[in-house]
């Protein structure tokens, strides 16, 4: 900013090239969203009477709020698992030779190349009663009766963490790659231990990647209808299934619309917390 106005400002760009995508978004995203909002502001399924009934119904109902809460919590758990498991991989990536780098990137990307449905079915096979985990534990004599892993919160978190892992690892790899390795050495030569270097230098500088990864993983985890319903089963209700039930089985579109608007706002709130953290983190870089 602050450049003197020239005959043609070189820092500004024509918006023409973005117009097709903008138009596409306007027609296929903004318009349906407005329609959704309009529909949610009706008290009856035929959408004849205006009112806030659907929102009041949801927000005063402990059960619905519980579903929202457990969905947001599920996202937090999955994000935490992805972060804890993904960070070392990303860190390792920056410190190994090119051949190992190729292998790591392949391992990270491989899940993205198979469909979510296939990956989720694989988890059913792994977590099932006669699945890999139970069979191994039983043959080692650690347990007598198979553990119940499928259709539990634990199973959903683990499966989702694996399914969404690339969304966390890729931004982390990029962020860690931008850190000047000399900073590590400088910190060490000034007398800081490895943990101190990690917490004072590496972690703060990689925060933009952490934030980006967390946002992506979180959003993907809470909306993952397929994995949630296949590994979680029919008695664990999360927002996507709740929405599906109201819209598809019960044909209660106004309530379903209200659920999606509330869900959207809740997710936006969480994402904006992440971005605020990101903005604060910029202070760490000393810029």
């Amino acid at each position, binding site marked *: 900013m602050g450049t003197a106005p020239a005959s043609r400002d070189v820092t500004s760009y024509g918006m023409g090239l973005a117009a097709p995508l903008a138009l596409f978004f306007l027609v296929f995203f903004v318009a349906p969203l407005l329609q959704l909002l309009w529909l949610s502001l009706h008290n009856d399924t035929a959408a004849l009477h205006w009112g806030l009934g659907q929102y009041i119904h949801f927000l005063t109902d402990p059960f619905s709020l519980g579903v929202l809460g457990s969905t947001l919590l599920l996202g937090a758990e999955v994000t935490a698992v992805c972060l804890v498991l993904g960070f070392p991989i990303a860190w390792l990536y920056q410190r190994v030779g090119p051949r190992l780098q190729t292998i790591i990137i392949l391992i990270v990307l491989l899940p993205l190349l198979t469909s979510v449905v296939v990956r989720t079915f694989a988890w059913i096979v792994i977590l099932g009663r*006669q699945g890999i985990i139970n069979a191994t534990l039983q043959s080692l004599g650690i347990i007598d009766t198979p553990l119940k892993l499928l259709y539990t919160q634990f199973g959903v978190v683990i499966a989702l963490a694996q399914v969404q892992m690339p969304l966390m690892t890729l931004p982390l790899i990029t962020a860690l790659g931008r850190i000047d390795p000399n900073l590590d050495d400088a910190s060490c030569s000034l007398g800081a231990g490895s943990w101190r270097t990690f917490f004072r230098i590496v972690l703060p500088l990689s925060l933009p990647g952490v934030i980006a990864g967390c946002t992506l993983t979180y959003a993907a985890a809470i909306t993952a209808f397929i994995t949630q*319903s*296949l590994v979680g*089963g*029919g008695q664990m209700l999360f927002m996507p299934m709740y929405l599906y*039930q109201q819209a598809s089985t019960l044909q209660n579109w106004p309530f379903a619309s209200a659920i999606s608007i509330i869900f959207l706002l809740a997710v936006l709130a969480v994402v904006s917390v992440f971005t605020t953290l990101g903005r604060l983190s910029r202070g760490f870089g000393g810029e």
Partner: protein
Amino acid sequence: MILNRRSLMTTALTLGAMKAFPGLSYAQARPLVFATFTGSWEEAHKAVLVPAFRKANADAAIVLDPMLSVDQIAKINAAKANPPIDVMLHDPGPALIAIGQDLAEPYPVDKSAYYKDLITEAQEPMGPAPFFQVVGLTYNPEAIKTPPTSWADLWKPEFKGRVGITNLNSTLGTGWLVEIAKMRGGSEANVDPAFKALEELKPNLAAVAANPGALATLFQQGQIDISPGNFNAIQILKARGVPVEFVAPKEGAIAFKTTIHIVKNSPNRELAFKLIEASLSPEVQTTLMNPPYLIVPTNSKVAMGGEIARVLAKDTAELKQKFVFQDWKKINEQRSAWIERFNREIKI
């Protein structure tokens, strides 16, 4: 022919426009559009019903557009005056919704050659039932040596942690709940006894599947050994070598009518009628009754055979005696409340 950039561009634009606005190419008449269900339904209809219809109607053009009942209703509602679908297929719940929203045309019963041959339960003036779906008990014969005989067997202590059910999103889940209510003295209007029974079933429950299809996976993985199940779904699993068997419980197997309707304001009313006639005909129903389809016929002129005769019923009389039909008008009235209650109470 010389292709230059301009002519390529024009062709591409025209093709694109035809794709984007199919109305352009069907300005005069569009083919008959039949919204069947996805999966094995589509396969069966493509292989048997469509060829039979075309043979009888001078190769009339027909398009299968498989989609869920809800989507059919939504699509027709969006363009009631000029519906994009001519013939729709529904489970009992959605059928009543479609009729309630005035989307179905009364079936021209007087003109029909086969309507009077249908068993009484299949004779629906707003759209007859060409097929039944049957729900009974499914079990793994390798784990369960004595075949179950009654819904009540699900509560046996020996099946602790071995029972699977589905939630009420599906026709199967809701229908089953009503049947359990009836077994315990309730009815379509009162499912309280069923919820009490579910509470007692909890120790036995290994899984509450999100949809009937997920039950199949659970059988394959040994996660469950016994569950309520759809006769046709079980035959598909059996054909793939999964150890499962189907029995009709002594209380009666639950039969759902799959009804077929002419869409109101359809521009192809006559062809739609012909397609439905074909689906009611003994020839089509006999073919669909045989492997690999094993679809339960509704035309009383069809002689039962094969697996259907073995496990379900040998003839129409026995079928009527062994099948239980439910009042979906009553069920629809309270279904959303039940789903809500199920959401809240069934946590394992």
